[in-house]
Structures are given as structure tokens and as C-alpha cells.
């Protein structure tokens, strides 16, 4: 019987397999940031261990850095960033610190440098590591104990997750984006739907997505509970990679492409589970609740808890409406927001900024609007295209690179009761600041919302 993409990549990385034990899996690339690594480095020091392969490791400062120029004013945050610098220097790990041209959100810079390639295993102490699966890599988030394990051994003991295919039939209608697609998928299968699985996104609509769009889809696999998301590499992938600083060159490139072309699910392979979704019926999608599965088409209304048959879902909906300050039956288009955030590892790439700029060109924002490029590389590219002038002319704030308001660790936060339309990935209670209320949206909907002050699709303008 044939094998799935996930099985092929997994098997390629098994260092050791023994009956009754998890596989020992080799890790090709380990991404590090300031928040989930300090205790791991402490652990190494306490056990007098070293980093096995510093040259397969890269560090950046992203989660806890300000997005305005100048030093970090919060002393606790400063200590955390300084700790990463000390650790990177001590263990010989390449670091892109604040202000460096290569700095940025960890899941933006890996692909940007060409370090993320098909068929690799990639881990990071961050759940959105699933982003890199867009290249046909197995990429997943780990905790600090596992960060320490990878630093010390360049491997992880793990059981291979089950495989799930999400078959996206048909084409996405004009004006419907990768973000709308993944939000609709999460609403369909639920926040626990992917637990224990590696998801492979397949079908015509997926093949037509750009690499940026594919990264958006794979990024939010974790919001559906999946350990990882993958898309088989194709010409779109190879074109994106060609010429990037760490992509193979010359003969090496040819050999790599030859191998990458084998990284597809065989026709006779079987998935443990198959889910189908029809792309052609999708419209712009937003969340109304406090978990990413609580979403609905923008053209619909806030649902009534009684609509949910499952008692657990019903009580979650009741609680969500109370926290979000929403009344069942209110059209989603009537929800007023205070802040718009465009950025994050979900939607902080150049294509996302172009999409937002296209809508904001010649218009004015009526909300506080933060545009945070995912990396300094994205920032530079955007400025070369003049996008920053479009944002500033519209009245939006053009910031430095970082995770920013996606997780509210740095000073970019919502105040209690404030409401955002956000291109990030989590609408959890307090995620963007204590008491803050988050609606997850695409960059296009975010930009249109900034213009009207209510949840709005570009077509409504």
C-alpha cells in the first residue's frame, strides 16, 4: 500500500525504532525564541550538557519585544531578551536580535531565509510551528522540556500521529482568502477535531494558494487541535524557495527538487480520517466567540446558544457571548470594533500587507489600526513597494516587527472591554490583553473594518 506525505517524511527521520517505545525522530531545524527557551538552557547547564548541533538551530527575538523603536522599558522583558542573547552566545547559536535586518517572528523568518524546506522536520517552542508544514515539512510545537531535549540530542521521542486528509473541493470565490478557508475548517471540525493527527490539506483550492496562503492555512492547524498541518510541495513551493539564502544551489538544487517531487501522498495511500469541504460555497469568515472554532460567515448573525445541540458547546457559547458582550441575533456586520491588528505569524507576510494596503489606499481608518510586519525583511519589502506610505496616509500605525498584539506580551494590548478585529490566530479570553475581546479575521476584512469601524468585507465598501 502507498504512503501518505506525512508517513514518508516521518519515516525518513526515524533514528531508532523499538517495540513498545516511541520513535526517536531526528530534527532538521530547531527554532528558538526568548520566551520558551531560558529554562531549557538552564537545564542544559545544570546537567553539564551542550547543544548537539548549534548549526541546525536559529534564534530570534519576537514574542516579547516592543514594536516601537527604542530600548525595552519593562525590566522583566528586558531580562528575558538579554537572557536569550547570553544563551545564544554561550552555546554558539545564530541569533537575530531586535534591530537586526533578519529579526522577525520565528515562523516568518524560517521560510524567508529558505531554511524551511520540503521533507524536513522542524520544531520550535511555539504551537504555530505548524506554519512550516506549508512546504511539505513535518513541523510542530513543543514545550520547554522538549526544547531542552532537542538542544541536547537533536532528536525527539515521539509516536507518529494519525493522518487526516482535509480535501478542499472546488475553488475559493473571489474575495475569499486562505484565512477564511482555515477559519471555516476549524468551525467545521472543532478545536479538538484534529487532536492526535497530522493534517494534510489537499485539493484544487489548496493547490491554487500562494505559499503565503498555504502558510496561513497550516499555521492555524493547531487551532483545530492538530499536531501539524502539511501541504505537498509543488512548483509554487520550488519557485518560492529558489534563490533564497539557505536554499540549495546548482546541482544540489536539482537533486533536492528531484527528491521533493516524491513528497506527495501516493494514490493508493489511506488516511486514518478524511474530511471534505467545498471551497466554492465559502464567504468571508470571522469569529464571534472565545475559541477559534466559534466562527461564522460575516454575512450571518451572532448565534444563539440554544442552536447548539451539544450541552458542552451550548454552555461554551453562553459563556463566550457574555465575555464578548454580544447578543444572539446581532448581525456580525453591526459589531463595532476599537482596534484593528494586521500582523502575526498567521497574516504578517508581504502578501497580507499588500492585501491590506490595497483596501486602505486612498481611504482613512476610523479605528486604532496597528500594522505590524512579521519580520524586518517583510518591513523592508513593504517599504520598497511604498506600502508604509499607504498605511500612514490612511492613519494607521506602521510598526517594527514582532508578535505584538497577537499575544499581548509586549505593550501592544487591548484594554478591558476593548474589541479588536485581528488577523492573528487566537480569540481566547484576555489573549490580546486582559478583558480584551477579539474577532479573528482576514487581512482584507481587517482593513475594511478599520475603514468603517464595524466588521466589514472589502466588497461592502
Amino acid at each position, binding site marked *: 500500500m502507498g504512503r501518505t506525505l506525512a508517513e514518508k517524511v516521518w519515516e525518513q527521520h526515524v533514528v531508532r525504532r523499538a517495540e513498545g517505545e516511541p520513535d526517536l525522530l531526528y530534527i532538521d531545524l530547531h527554532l528558538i525564541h526568548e520566551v520558551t527557551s531560558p529554562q531549557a538552557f538552564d537545564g542544559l547547564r545544570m546537567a553539564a550538557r551542550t547543544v548537539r548541533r548549534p548549526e541546525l538551530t536559529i534564534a530570534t527575538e519576537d514574542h516579547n519585544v516592543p514594536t516601537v523603536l527604542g530600548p525595552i522599558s519593562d525590566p522583566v522583558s528586558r531580562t528575558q531578551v538579554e537572557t536569550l542573547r547570553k544563551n545564544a552566545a554561550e552555546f554558539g547559536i545564530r541569533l537575530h536580535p531586535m534591530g537586526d535586518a533578519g529579526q522577525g517572528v520565528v515562523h516568518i523568518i524560517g521560510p524567508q531565509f529558505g531554511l524551511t524546506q520540503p521533507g524536513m522536520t522542524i520544531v520550535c517552542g511555539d504551537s504555530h510551528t505548524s506554519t512550516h508544514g506549508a512546504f511539505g515539512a513535518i513541523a510542530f510545537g513543543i514545550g520547554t522540556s522538549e526544547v531542552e531535549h532537542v538542544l541536547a*540530542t537533536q532528536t525527539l521521542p515521539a509516536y507518529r500521529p494519525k493522518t487526516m486528509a482535509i480535501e478542499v473541493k472546488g475553488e475559493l470565490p473571489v474575495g475569499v482568502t486562505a484565512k477564511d478557508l482555515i477559519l471555516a475548517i476549524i468551525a467545521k471540525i472543532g478545536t*479538538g477535531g484534529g487532536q492526535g493527527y497530522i493534517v494534510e490539506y489537499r485539493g484544487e483550492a489548496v493547490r491554487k494558494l500562494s505559499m503565503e496562503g498555504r502558510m496561513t492555512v497550516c499555521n492555524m492547524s493547531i487551532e483545530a487541535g492538530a499536531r501539524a498541518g502539511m501541504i505537498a510541495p509543488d512548483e509554487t513551493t520550488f519557485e518560492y524557495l529558489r534563490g533564497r539564502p539557505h536554499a540549495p544551489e546548482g546541482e*544540489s538544487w536539482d537533486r533536492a527538487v528531484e527528491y521533493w517531487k516524491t513528497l506527495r501522498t501516493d494514490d493508493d495511500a489511506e488516511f486514518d480520517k478524511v474530511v471534505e469541504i467545498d471551497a466554492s460555497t465559502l464567504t468571508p469568515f470571522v469569529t464571534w466567540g472565545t475559541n477559534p472554532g466559534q466562527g461564522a460567515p460575516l454575512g450571518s448573525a451572532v448565534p444563539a446558544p440554544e442552536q447548539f445541540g451539544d450541552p458542552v458547546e451550548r454552555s461554551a457559547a453562553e459563556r463566550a457571548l457574555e465575555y464578548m458582550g454580544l447578543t444572539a441575533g446581532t448581525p456580525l456586520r453591526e459589531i463595532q470594533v476599537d482596534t484593528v491588528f494586521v500582523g502575526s505569524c498567521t497574516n504578517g507576510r508581504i502578501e497580507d500587507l499588500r492585501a491590506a494596503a490595497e483596501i486602505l489606499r486612498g481611504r482613512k481608518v476610523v479605528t486604532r489600526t496597528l500594522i505590524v510586519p512579521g519580520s524586518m525583511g517583510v518591513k523592508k519589502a513593504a517599504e520598497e513597494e511604498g506600502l508604509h506610505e499607504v498605511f500612514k496616509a490612511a492613519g494607521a500605525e506602521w510598526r517594527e516587527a514582532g508578535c505584538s498584539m497577537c499575544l499581548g506580551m509586549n505593550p501592544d494590548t487591548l484594554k478591558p472591554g476593548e474589541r479588536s478585529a485581528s488577523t492573528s490566530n487566537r480569540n481566547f479570553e484576555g489573549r490580546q490583553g486582559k478583558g480584551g475581546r477579539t474577532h479573528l479575521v482576514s487581512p482584507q476584512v481587517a482593513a475594511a473594518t478599520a475603514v468603517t469601524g464595524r466588521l466589514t468585507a472589502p466588497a461592502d465598501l
Partner: protein
Amino acid sequence: MDAFTTHTGRAVPLRRSNVDTDQIIPAVWLKQVSRTGFEKGLFAAWREDPSFVLNDPVYEGASILVSGPDFGTGSSREHAVWALQQYGFRVVIASRFGDIFRNNSTKMGLLPVILPEDVVERLQDAAEADPKTEITVDLAERQVRSGDLVASFEIDDYTRWRLMEGLDDIGLTLRHADAIEEYENGRQPWLPTTV
């Protein structure tokens, strides 16, 4: 990590689903570079509500958290596990867990126990009816017992053995250093390095 064989304690019923790791430990607590002191941040936002179950003095000293489904979804922050342990929890029982949280828990010796939703609700009912109700979580027998309730749970042999022995994963892996080196010698030549 401390070995886990069997544990008997009182339970806190947390009747919420999708208890994500941002609720367990909000991001503002993630700025610390140490491994201690996270108990103060456990459910920090929810604890501001006097009616939140952890604020009820009858549950003081409880060591088993019995939650609704999809506990520990979201962020990979292991700080969530540290916060629960440092507060005094040894076990979390739910019908579904976020994968990364469950993994992190077993690395630290916090036992995640998966039971069917109706059994979880019976345990919650019991802890609400009488907060002194004791629950025994027996890893050796893969069983949860409380009064006349006896429920079996699944956990793979390897993880169970590691928890019962309190073994350090890195030490176990380093026993296979030769296999790692051999694998490294055969890696595809075009794979990137960060230098």
C-alpha cells in the same frame, strides 16, 4: 521529575471546556526566566472572580483538577504545567486534552488522565456534592477510583513506565547516541544549516 505511581487526593471540579493555556497561565507571566513562582499566575484572570471554583475555600489543598473537554489547548507554553504543579496539582482529568499540553505534562510528571465525558461529570458531581470526596489515581493499574466508581484509563506503556520510574527523557535518549551519530552521517547533503 518525581516518580508517579499512585495518588489519592481531593478534586476541584472545573466545569469549563476549551480551557486554553492562555487561561491556565496568561502571557504576562511568561516573562520570567526561572522555573518557579508560577502558582501565583495559575488561572490569574479567572481567580479575580470571587465565585471562581479555585477561590472556594472548601477546595483548598485539592490536588486533582477535573475539567471539561479540550483542556490545555492553544499555546505550547510549558509554564501551564509548571503553574498547575506549583499550585499543588498532581493530576488533571478530562475527556480530551490539547496534544502539546498532554506531552508537556508527561515530561514533568503531571499526570493527564483521559476519561469519558460522563465519568468526568460523575467525578465533578461527586466533588461538588462533597468536596472531601477522595479520588485515587492509580497509574500502575491504569485506574481511577472514587467511592463505588472504578474507571480504567489508557496510557501507553512507555510513558507509564517513564512516569512510574521518574526518568529523565534526555538521559534515556543519550543512551542511543551511537544511533543518532549514524543517522547524522546519512542525512541528505542539501539539507540547510543556519551558519
